[in-house]
């Protein structure tokens, strides 16, 4: 299955189109220089049934954190700088999504940092330093898509409910 590249300028429509194309096995999101992003973009990214890899580089605001938290896997390049300011944090729901993704204390380290470099982002666990294209190619398999769906449902379920969902999901694989 193919990897579809979607940039921030393709917007929600680009993500939607990738999600609807049965040939697309994974989506590689280029979030270079993420600033004042559409809040619907990370929401749509998170709702895709296909695995996603986000790569963030350059000078970004906290929207980069939202994209990284919404993707299946996040990668940052060495030159990335993220400026964290409260209007973006609050506008993108990061006080909910970052603690959910990382745990409360690591999330606070990011949210109160003012600026974050590649080392801090990788140390937090929100991103790593792999090859984004290779990661996306690795995730472009049906099994990875099932895990993405399972994880999204599990986040809003009790253990028993999640297991019952997975019992049905396994029959699709």
């Amino acid at each position: 299955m193919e990897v579809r590249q979607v940039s921030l300028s393709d917007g929600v429509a680009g993500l939607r189109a990738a999600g609807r194309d049965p040939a697309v096995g994974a989506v590689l999101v280029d979030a270079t220089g993420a600033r004042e992003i559409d809040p619907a973009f990370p929401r749509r990214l998170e709702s895709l049934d296909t695995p996603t890899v986000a790569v963030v580089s350059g000078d970004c605001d906290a929207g980069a954190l939202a994209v990284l938290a919404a993707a299946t896997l996040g990668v940052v390049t060495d030159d990335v700088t993220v400026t964290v300011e409260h209007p973006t944090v609050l506008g993108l729901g990061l006080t909910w999504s970052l603690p959910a993704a990382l745990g409360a204390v690591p999330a606070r380290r990011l949210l109160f940092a003012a600026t974050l470099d590649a080392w801090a982002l990788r140390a937090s666990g929100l991103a790593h330093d792999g090859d984004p294209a290779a990661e996306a190619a690795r995730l472009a398999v049906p099994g990875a898509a099932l895990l993405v769906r399972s994880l999204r449902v599990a986040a809003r379920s009790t253990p028993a409910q999640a297991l019952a969902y997975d019992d049905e999901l396994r029959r699709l694989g």
Partner: protein
Amino acid sequence: MGKVTTSHDGAVAVLTLNSPDNRNALSTDLLVELADALEELDADDGVHAIVLTGGPSLFASGADVRQLRDLSPVEYAASPRATSWRRIGAVGTPVVAAVAGVALGGGCELALAADLVVAADTAVFGQPEVRLGLVPGAGGTQRWARAAGRYTAAGVVLTGRTVDAFEARDLGLVHRIVPAQRVVAAAVTVAGQIAANGPLAVRAARAAVRRAEELPLGAAMEFERQQLLLMLTSDDHVEGITALLDKRAPRFTGR
């Protein structure tokens, strides 16, 4: 081809709304066909539970708004729409709704008319009627209030906001959440669990549960006691208890 198709899986019947051209809008034709099909299955002794679904993409998008726009109150009252909804509500066989995608307006009322809802994680419930200058007319205001409480009902019915499968499960409306492609199969599994029980007992228990919405507690408890007395006259309860004591599966006859 009809707008409602029926298939059978043992003692479970599956009714599928099949009007993809208008996203299963509940036209008068479709409602009449649905009521006919439900009544026919309800009268069939071989059918112990019914799954009602729109398939893995969507359940039902609501009333056929073009039809509604052109109806006068007198015409509405005289049309088969209102009668169809009453006939749908009068079915005594347990109904499991299998909901994927939108169940809005009349589609949501149809889902909430069922005894249980199995939902896909894609399911969306809501009563957007007020956005069109209408109100729900087939139980939307009442079923939401009774299932989820008056304040939740007000949020849904007065703002027209939608509720996803997870919130609906938290509110108690949804029995199980499954992948969309498995929603019909999972509902058939649940319906099969119901159908495996004593059919007289299931119908009586269902009727008693429904009384929880319709009668004061004392009268409903009295109804429940009467159902138990009725069961004590049945062959099925003798068979059920004997099978339990003999450590074997019961063979119910519905008598």
